[in-house]
Structures are given as structure tokens and as C-alpha cells.
């Protein structure tokens, strides 16, 4: 509603201006300053995509730069970039996840960005959260600039938690402090087709991002620190795998491997849910009575999985300065308007400036997300990260459903990852 009113007002203001200046004036200006049109690909296919549309419209109104946006599901977007960029058919600007940077950089899909260009365009490291700023660098070269930080958070269904008597002294839902406590609480909630705990949006059985979160909490990781071989058969990783299998196959507190945890949570059939921050605006739209808390410490460290979105320039066949400038102008504009993006799309910005915006600090969910910043961790910078993740998906699912014992499955997975071709 608000947007419509603004548009109408702006339209009337524009019409008045045209009337005052006269049409020839407008035409002359349009000829004098032809503005670029750039292509921009991203994977914002959810509610966030609609917000991006609106912001892009506003950007075009203010700058005259037109953006042809293509929103493609992330996995397809990456395949499309890999195919079209070498053919010279890539977009002028692309938004990708940090972990995609190494393999795209390695394959020459992305163009390196000079630090002098970055500072020349007014982007400074101290304006950004360090982990997001560093995420744009691969093997000493910068390939991307961070926009925001999708991350995990704990959602709790207030009604279910209250019904199970899991409330703190102030009446808010109780937050588990360890994995034993989590299991006890989850068992109190679980009943029939109602589940106590889940990690993952859809298909929790193969939710690698949740599995990574647990690995990192236990000090484990997909690769050894030198990135030479897989560390998934090490005891700390196996311990995580055992827990991952226990929640569904053994204790039956987590939903089936292919359930939609989001639908279950909205339907009031899931009590505690570790999932992406991108879900919370949808939960509000669905009028679910929920509370949030930082991702609980289930292993050794309270690490929170995070995966910044990064702006990148896919390598063009021949660089057109006007288009590159227009792309920079958009990144600049979005960085300056990132508070709007945070408020409406629910993604915490990588840039610090927006964090003190009173509208953001007043929002309990955004405040919780921001408070998690010291515990953020992301994937390892290797071109083989994504391939390893693809191999991980079916293997953790066999553990989740109890088809394979954790240790044997993880040893097999480590073998598969080590056999990945160079």
C-alpha cells in the first residue's frame, strides 16, 4: 500500500515537473545522458526477490540506470554462470554465495577486482564486518563485495513450547543449553506427527548447511586446514554425524528426511527449529507465534553457520566501461540503502552502518541475528567445497534415516571427497 502511494505521489510530482519544464527539455536531457542498461543475475527467488525488485525500481527511478534482473534458483544460477560466462554471454553483475567464489575464480568465470578500484569507489574494509569482507578474497585476490549475511537462527513455536511446559521464568520459551537438554526438551514436545526439533528448511535429511553448522560447533570441518584432504572421518566429525542420525532415526524427535520443516513449523507441528534467517519474514506473514534465540551451543563452540551474498563481476567478452560503472553504481546504491534491504528482506547487512539503525535494533529477530556476528563461520576457501557438499547430501541422509551407521558413512564420504578430480 505504502509503495503504491509513493509511486503515485512520485508520478504526480514527475508529471508536474514535465508540465513545468516542458517536453522538449525532457527530450533534450534524455539525449544528453544516455544511461546504461545492465543485466543482473541472482538467486533471490523467495520473498526477498520481491523486495529486490522494488529496490531496483527505486534505484532506476533515482539514477536512470536500468537493470534487467534474472532470478534463477541458486543451483541453476551457478550452472548457468559456468556455461554462459565462458561463452561471453554472462551478466554484467551477479550475486552469489561466498563459497562459490573459489571455484568460479579458479575457472576464470569471475573478474578479479583491484583493491584500488574498490577504495576508489568508496568501499572501505572498516565499514564491513571482517568475516564478510575477507570472504571476497581468494588466494590473495578480491573477486567480490559482500551485501548481506544469511545465517542460522533458532526459531521456537511459542504455543508448542508452552503446551510442553518449556518456558523460562519470564514466560518466554526456554532455550536449550546443550544437546542433551535439547533432546530432553524435544522429546517433551514430540507427539504423533508433531516434532520437537529440526535443523533445515526442507529435506532436513540432506541439509548440509545444518550439518556444517554442527561440524563447526565441534571444531570439525569438511577439509583439513591445509585443504588437501577431507577431515570428515575424524572423530569430531563422526560425533556430529552420530548426533545427526540420533535426532531422527534413534530418538524420532526430528521430522522425516524429506519433510518441509518450514511448513511443519507454520502448521504448529515443530517446536524448535534451527534454520536460515531468510525464513523469518515468511513466518511473520503467516502469522505464526514464534520466538527466536541465537543458535544454541550443541557441541564445543556456539558457532553460527553463515553464508554472505557477494556481488561479483562475471568476466565479459569485452569490457564496456559504462556498464561496469552502472554496476558499481548499483552496488554503491544498495550498500547505502542496505537498511531497507535488511528490514524488508530480513537479511542482516555486511556493512556496519545499517546495524545502528533504530528500526533494525528495535526488531527482536534482527537484533538476535546481529548479536550472533562474533560467532559467524563460513565454508572453507577451496574450489572443491561445492563438489564436496554435493557428495555430502546423500550420505548424511543415509545417516539421518538410520540406513547406514555414522562412522562407516563418514569414512566412505571422506574417501569420495578425496577422490574428487583436480
Amino acid at each position, binding site marked *: 500500500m505504502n509503495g503504491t502511494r509513493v509511486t503515485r505521489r512520485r508520478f504526480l510530482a514527475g508529471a508536474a515537473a514535465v508540465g513545468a519544464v516542458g517536453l522538449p527539455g525532457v527530450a533534450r536531457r534524455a539525449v544528453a545522458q544516455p544511461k546504461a542498461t545492465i543485466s543482473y543475475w541472482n538467486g533471490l527467488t523467495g520473498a526477498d526477490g520481491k523486495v529486490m525488485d522494488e529496490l531496483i525500481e527505486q534505484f532506476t527511478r533515482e539514477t536512470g540506470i536500468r537493470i534487467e534482473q534474472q532470478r534463477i534458483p541458486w*543451483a541453476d544460477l551457478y*550452472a548457468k554462470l*559456468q*556455461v554462459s*560466462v*565462458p561463452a561471453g554471454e554472462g551478466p554484467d553483475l551477479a550475486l552469489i554465495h561466498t563459497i562459490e567464489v573459489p571455484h568460479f575464480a579458479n*575457472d*576464470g*568465470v569471475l573478474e578479479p577486482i583491484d583493491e584500488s578500484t574498490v577504495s576508489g569507489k568508496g568501499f572501505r574494509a572498516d565499514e564491513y564486518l571482517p568475516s564478510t569482507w575477507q570472504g571476497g578474497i581468494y588466494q590473495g585476490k578480491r573477486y567480490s563485495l559482500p551485501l548481506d549475511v544469511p545465517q542460522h537462527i533458532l526459531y521456537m513455536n511459542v504455543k508448542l513450547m508452552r503446551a510442553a511446559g518449556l518456558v523460562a521464568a519470564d514466560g518466554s520459551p526456554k532455550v536449550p543449553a546443550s544437546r542433551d537438554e535439547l533432546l530432553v526438551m524435544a522429546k517433551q514436545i514430540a507427539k504423533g*506427527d508433531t*516434532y520437537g526439533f529440526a535443523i533445515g528448511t526442507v*529435506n532436513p*535429511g*540432506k541439509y548440509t548447511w545444518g550439518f556444517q553448522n554442527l561440524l563447526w560447533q565441534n571444531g570439525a570441518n569438511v577439509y583439513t586446514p591445509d585443504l588437501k584432504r577431507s577431515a570428515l572421518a575424524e572423530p569430531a566429525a563422526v560425533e556430529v554425524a552420530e548426533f545427526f542420525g540420533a535426532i531422527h532415526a534413534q530418538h524420532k524427535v526430528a*521430522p*522425516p*528426511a*524429506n*519433510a*518441509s520443516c518450514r*511448513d*511443519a513449523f507454520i*502448521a504448529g*507441528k515443530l517446536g524448535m527449529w534451527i534454520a536460515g534467517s531468510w525464513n523469518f519474514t515468511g513466518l511473520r506473514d503467516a502469522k505464526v507465534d514464534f520466538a527466536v534465540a541465537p543458535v544454541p551451543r550443541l557441541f564445543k563452540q556456539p558457532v553460527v553457520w553463515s553464508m554472505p551474498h557477494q556481488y561479483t563481476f562475471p568476466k565479459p567478452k569485452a569490457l564496456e566501461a559504462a556498464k561496469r560503472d552502472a554496476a558499481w553504481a548499483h552496488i554503491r546504491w544498495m550498500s547505502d540503502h542496505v537498511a531497507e534491504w535488511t528490514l524488508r528482506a530480513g537479511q542482516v547487512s555486511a556493512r556496519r552502518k545499517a546495524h545502528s539503525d533504530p528500526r533494525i535494533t528495535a526488531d527482536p529477530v534482527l537484533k538476535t541475528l546481529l548479536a550472533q556476528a562474533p560467532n559467524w563461520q563460513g565454508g572453507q576457501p577451496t574450489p572443491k567445497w561445492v*563438489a564436496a557438499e*554435493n*557428495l555430502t*547430501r*546423500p*550420505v548424511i*541422509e*543415509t545417516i*539421518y*534415516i538410520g*540406513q*547406514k551407521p555414522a562412522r562407516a558413512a563418514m569414512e566412505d564420504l571422506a574417501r569420495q571427497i578425496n577422490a*574428487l*578430480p583436480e
Partner: protein
Amino acid sequence: MAAADRGVKHRAPRRLRRGALTPYLFLVPGLLLFAAFRLYPLLDGLRLSFTNARLGRPQYAWVGLANYQRLLDDTRFHASLWNTAFYTVASTLPILAIPLVLAVALNRGVALKTFLRSAFFFPFTLSVVTVGLTWLWLLDPVVGPFNYYLRTLGLPTRSWLADPYTAMWAIILTTVWWVTGYYLVIYLAGLQDIPGELYEAAALDGASGWRSFWSITLPLLRPVLLFVFVTHIIGSFQIFGQVFVLTQGGPGDATRTVVQHLYETAFQNFFHFGSASAMAWVLFGVIVVFSLLQFRLLRGHTEY
């Protein structure tokens, strides 16, 4: 005379040759398209299968049979071959029989025949993604209606698509629901080609309904059955869409099929076109062998 004879002799074959070329000229546009979009990719795929080509990398090298050799050790490829074979065998009987039963019933002239024919055909007009998403929701373990009604009736529920023992059957069920209408229409056309006198004569000789089905309907439907059988087998070996939408090959690798494995190798895991092309050619070989076997088995008895 001799000269004239020779002239005639010379002219006749030339005219013949010119006439013989005409059909090919008409075929040229189609053949060119076939060559550009079918033959060339096919053969280029064969070439790629002997290289270490990767999408996005301009240089690649000839690696001989290495990609094929790797397939011998690739346990996930073996699993996907086995799953594809299982799907093909397990889905054949329902896909041959259910549309046949429905077609025979509809051919007898039941009430609402036209409506029912359209109703059965309707699912086939949907894309595989629509069908997959519909069934994904129907079979959802928590909020899906399938389990809801089972629960209401006091029957045990399952997460059909997340259980290695039921996932492939759920895919078969989805496929049967989707393609029944298509085969039904083909069977109906075949049934309408069978002369009514044969049934009349059989009835006069005192043949029962079953007897005329076994002795008239089935034998005379043989060409149609062969068509359905062969196209179904070829299609089954290439199953991808339903699996991709419903299970992504899961749980674990329980429903991973060859084409899915190939797709992931080519477009998700490192864009290994060489390796994926080798898989495609192995699958091609399997399909050719099966198709030849089917034709050999059924050829002698079929009148076209």
C-alpha cells in the same frame, strides 16, 4: 537404331536418378536439422567421452578409455544403473496393464466415456515438474493428505519418499498416474482397429468374454503392445524428471538413476562433461541392446 537405342538406354537411368533424388531433396531440411541438433551432439558427445573436458575450461586432453574405466569403479554409477533397471522392470507391468484394462473397459461403452477418457488423459498434459510437485505435496510426511487420511483411518503412516523401501514405488505410482492416459489413448486406437466381426464370430462360437480377450484382443493388439512396451522401456531407462523433483535420488542413493547421475556429473559436480558423456554412451548402449532384444523377441509374430 543402335545410336537411338543407346540414347534411350542412356536417358532412362538419368531420368531415374533424377527422380530418385527428389524425395531426398524434400528430406534435406529435416535431415539438416536432424544432423545439426541430433547427430552432431550425439557424435560430439562420443568424442567428449574420450576426453577430460570440463565445462568452462577451454583446454582439455584426450584420455582414451579412462572415463569408461572410472565408471567400472564408480559405485554410485552402479547403484544408479541398478535403480534404473529396477524401476524399468517394476514399472513395466503396471504401465502395460493398467491403461489396457481401462482402455478395454472404455471401449465397451461405459457411461461418461468421453469424459472419462479426457479425465484419464488430463494428467499427461501436465509437465513432469507439476506432476512431481503435486505428488511431493500429496505424499508429504507431515502436512500431506495421503498420510492424513491413513492416520484418520487408523492405518500406519510412512514418509514414503524418505524410506529406501518405498521411495521407488512412490515414483512408480506417480509415473503410472502421469502416463496412463497417454497409453490409454494409444490402446483405444488399437482396439478400435480390431474388426467387430471377429468378436461376433467368436460369440457365435460360444466364446466367453475372457476367451475373446485372450484370443482376439491381445493377439491383434500385439503391434500396439510392442509400441507401448518399447517406448516405455526406452523412456524408463531415461527416467529423470520425476526422480529429480520427488527425491533428488534419495534417500541416500536409493532412487538415483543413470540420467540423474549423469546430470549431476555434468552440471553440478565440477561440470565433468567427459565423464558424463561416457555415462550417456553406456546408457545408449544399454538402451540399444534392450530395444534390439525386444524387436527380435516380438518381430516374427507381428503383422504391421
